[in-house]
């Protein structure tokens, strides 16, 4: 019997995640203009995938998991997030 996971259930560790990089499904990516960002965190709160990461300076989408839905851009009161079409 050949197994991929060392765990009994569908669990893994953040270092060796056994999951689907949902970012591969993305057709458009959010780009944050650092100068405009007021660090209010609305994108962080609203992101349905929970993939906005808080950094020291501002908020950054985790492109491994961001599906490009655009909610962050829509809710941003500073209009600091724009969506840019992905090239395939």
């Amino acid at each position, binding site marked *: 019997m050949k197994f*991929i*996971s060392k765990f*009994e*259930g569908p*669990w893994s560790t953040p270092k060796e995640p056994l999951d689907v990089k949902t970012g591969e499904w993305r057709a458009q990516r959010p780009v944050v203009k650092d100068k405009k960002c007021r660090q209010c965190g609305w994108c962080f709160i609203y992101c349905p995938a929970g993939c906005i990461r808080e950094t020291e300076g501002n908020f950054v989408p985790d492109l491994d998991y961001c599906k490009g839905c655009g909610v962050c851009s829509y809710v941003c009161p500073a209009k600091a997030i724009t969506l840019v079409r992905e090239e395939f």
Partner: protein
Amino acid sequence: MSNLLDARGQVRVLDGNRAGAFGVLLSRPDVIASYPITPQTPLLETIYKFEADGLLDASMIEPEGENSAMGILIGACAVGGRTFTATSSQGLSFMNDAYLLAAGNRFPIVMAIAMREQVSPHGVFAGQQDAVLVKDHGWIQLYMESCQEILDSLIMAYRLAEDSDILLPVNVCYEGYYLSHHSQRVEVPRQEDADDFLLPLKSMKRLKWTLDDPMVFSSYTFPPELFTEYRYKMCAAHQRAKGKLDEIDRDFRAKFGRGYGGQIEEYRTEDAEFVIVTMGSATGTARVVVDRKREQGVKLGLIKIRMFRPSPRERLIQALSGKKAVGVIDRSVCYGWNCGHNYIEIKTLLSDLQGPPPKLLDFIAGLGGGDITSDLIERAIDGTLAAAQGKDQPAVTWLSLE
């Protein structure tokens, strides 16, 4: 001053819900999330009273519905907590996707189901349709005969669920009203004995999410080989759970002097030529009828199915081999098959039995809260005996419609 409510270490007259509440109290759960639904409600009410009176140290959470209740327990279980909830009928349906998530993620949640007929037609009365409907959702399901068995099985359920070889959620199922609201003599174990019985779990490894050591769970699974691997591992755990329950039952008997046979209980089957199969509260009545038939010289025995999921196939094959006729009493129906669930389950074993296969008949009884009386059971037995003598009998008899 001693608390009158605290019956630990005493013999009391308790209904099934209250007996179950003591099983939960004795198992020391960390988190209880609950939403009321008849006939389960007094079970959770009693647990709330335990907490209010300081007997139980657990987080009590009242969400807006059953789906959230199960969701909360999934979170509590992910961080290593011991959890409990209970539901019935439509409540069970309403938590369906969280119910599936709990099993698939291998969270050892224990949940009581006070079984009630499932819609439609609408009815709040006893049945088994609600619990048997979810038999393929990955939970272990144990079915109860008495109030004492409910209490004892809840403690055993934690030993089974949280065992590092198993890690599966467990349902303790008992018919609404017949057990949930019916009072019987119940021996309530002492706390130190229950603690001692659950002690082996303390040294067992369990998947656990902590802030220092976070884990990923319930993410999208790909490639298909990994998905298949998780399914395979869960099937293997179900296979292991069968022998594990027998083992836990033997341990329980050694400690408390009461045992239930593990996956199935055989009653007067050693020299029996004919057998009736029951599951749930009707078993007690069936024992009396078997005794009566034995006095008349009929070589009759009884098999009680305790573990419905995983299927106790191997034990049933052993128990049913060499019998001339088997009558199954079912308190549920399977659409498209025109019979009950246990009839189908046993039918699939016939070709694996040693010797010539027995005649197999199904008797549907007790739907919509109907009594499964000794008279109905006697008719089921007489039909089974007639089939063994070569008389033409229908494969499925709807007892209350005859």
